[in-house]
């Protein structure tokens, strides 16, 4: 996996790239927006980590130009700005994820894994939490090594939850995903799907956070 790191702060770039290399990523470091766009032209980059505070051009503008050149390039934004509006602007401009500085490396690795899975190489398609393993490409589910069959809709839901393990998926967000998949959504559609999923999964695998959404805990599993 080849990562293009666009970060103007040299100490941060050095530390980050060494950490990423330690996790077996190939890292190209650039310090300017223009260099980043030039590197992308070489067509060797899989994921971009982009700092928004660049000296030569606005990070959001770099992001827009990346989107124009390579439509589906996964981009994670890093920023020292943490206003809610910055986050929204970033995601609106086409970022796939957003990490405010200072962040945990483990958090960054987790986000990178989600993007990698989306890129869809066989080795990264497997998500395993506890005894539950899901191939995010083929949607094959095994619980304690035994294959389990479930309707596709419910497997898609499980995929979203497992890919974001440890994080809450708000109910509205899950509902909007169901819409995207062409499902009719009524007020308790999600509850029904989750209920079905739970029957096939280990106890307490999916947690309900009342009033907010659902989550699959990673720490306890």
């Amino acid at each position, binding site marked *: 996996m080849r990562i293009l790191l666009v970060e103007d702060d040299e100490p941060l770039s050095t530390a980050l790239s060494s950490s990423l290399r*330690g996790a077996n990523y190939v890292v190209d470091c650039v310090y300017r927006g223009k260099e980043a766009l030039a590197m992308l032209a070489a067509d060797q980059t899989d994921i971009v980590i982009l700092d928004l505070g660049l000296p030569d051009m606005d990070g959001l503008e770099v992001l827009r130009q990346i989107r124009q050149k390579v439509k589906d390039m996964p981009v994670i934004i890093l920023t020292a*700005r943490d206003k809610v509006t910055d986050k929204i602007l970033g995601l609106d401009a086409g970022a796939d994820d957003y990490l405010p500085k*200072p962040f*945990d490396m483990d958090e960054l690795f987790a986000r990178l894994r989600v993007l990698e899975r989306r890129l869809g190489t066989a080795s990264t398609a497997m998500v395993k939490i506890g005894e539950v393993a899901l191939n995010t490409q083929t949607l094959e589910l095994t619980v304690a090594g035994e294959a389990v069959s479930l309707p596709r809709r419910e497997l898609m839901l499980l995929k979203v939850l497992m890919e974001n393990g440890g*994080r809450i998926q708000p109910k509205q967000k899950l509902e909007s995903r169901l819409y995207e998949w062409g499902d009719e959504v009524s007020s308790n559609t999600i509850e029904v799907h989750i209920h079905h999923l739970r029957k096939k999964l280990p106890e307490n695998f999916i947690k309900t956070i*009342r009033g907010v959404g659902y989550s699959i805990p990673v720490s306890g599993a």
Partner: protein
Amino acid sequence: MHSIRRTITLVLISSLILVIFSAAIHGYRAALSMSSRFMDQELTTLLYSVALSNGQQVEDLGSSELVYQIWRDDKLITDSPNQPDKPLTLGADGFSEQNFDGRRWRVYKQTLTDGTTVIVGQPLQSRVGLTDALTVSVIMPFIYAVPILALIVFVSVSLGLKPLKLLSSKLSHRQGKDLSPVSLPQVPTEMQPVMDTLNTMFLRLNEAFEREQQFASNAAHELRTPLSVMKINLHNLAKERQDEAGKLQAIQQDTDRMIHVVNQILLLSRTSPEMFHTQLSQVDAFVVAQNVIADLYSKIESKRQEISLEGDSALLMSTEFTLYTLLQNLIANASAYSPEGAAIQVTVLVKDQQVCLIVEDSGPGIALHERSQVLKRFYRDQKDEKYKSTGSGLGLAIVGQIVTLHHGSIALGDASLGGLSVTVSLPFEVTES
């Protein structure tokens, strides 16, 4: 309060009245002296015509009010009808004023060369009547002029002060902490310096305000980037030196604490009243609570704590950032001060034109006698020494500042879950103080 318009109008109208009345008095006096000279002349004429009549009744007196007597050797020879038989005057020749017949008279006496004394008289009242008629005809236009002039004064003073009134209404209708320059359609020369000074001041204030904002954002960048580097290097080091894991973890914790303090200081500066009032909009507290819980969830989950959100959509005037910061502090506090496996319940409800945010936990709570102490820390002076020394106090100061911004209130109580319950009540609308 004193009003310029009222003062100017009053001074102008009262001086006008003063001038008009002194003119009237002067005119009255002039008319009086002129008419008395004219009347005296008439009396003199009458006296001569009486003297020339040689003791005959004078038929044509010119005015029925006129009287005369002719005396010779203290004997009344002839007189006009209805006269007292005493002399009208006993004084010397010439003009004098006398009382008889219940009235006051102007009397002229002349002793002729043959010893005959002729006295003529005229009641003063008839003279005054004439003078009055004269004076009134002179003064009347002035009297009529007073209300018209007063109206003109009032209108022109009001018109003259109109730009000032416009300026004050523009200033008082300003939205929040609007620091843009003021402009008026027509600025009188007298007000130009005021306007210029005002606008210069607005400009400087605005610049200072922007500098402050910029400072917060610069400080964020300057501190967060090196803190990120520190964190990543520590992470790398921990992987390389597993034998030093204990020491490294301690440094990592300190780094996290430092990051926390930096974030809190920035939050405090960003929830300033200036920022708040310029960015007010309608925010749903329930949605903000969902976001806060989702963002804090990994921390809560790592302590195996259960969190739930009760209630429904609750709109109020605020900013997303402010409400987020408030709830983040309350929920993070509940999680931090509750043990592993504790339960936290967040409730958003609408009551009496207020949105109530209730955060309850099953932790140890706060003893009754210590609660007021804790509440004080919410509102404590930011110059307090303790504020500088620890990071944990900042969260409460931020919550206190946000509650104050909303003119809301905060209360501590016993949670149904067994621990502490913190209730923050925020009115729907924010009135600027």
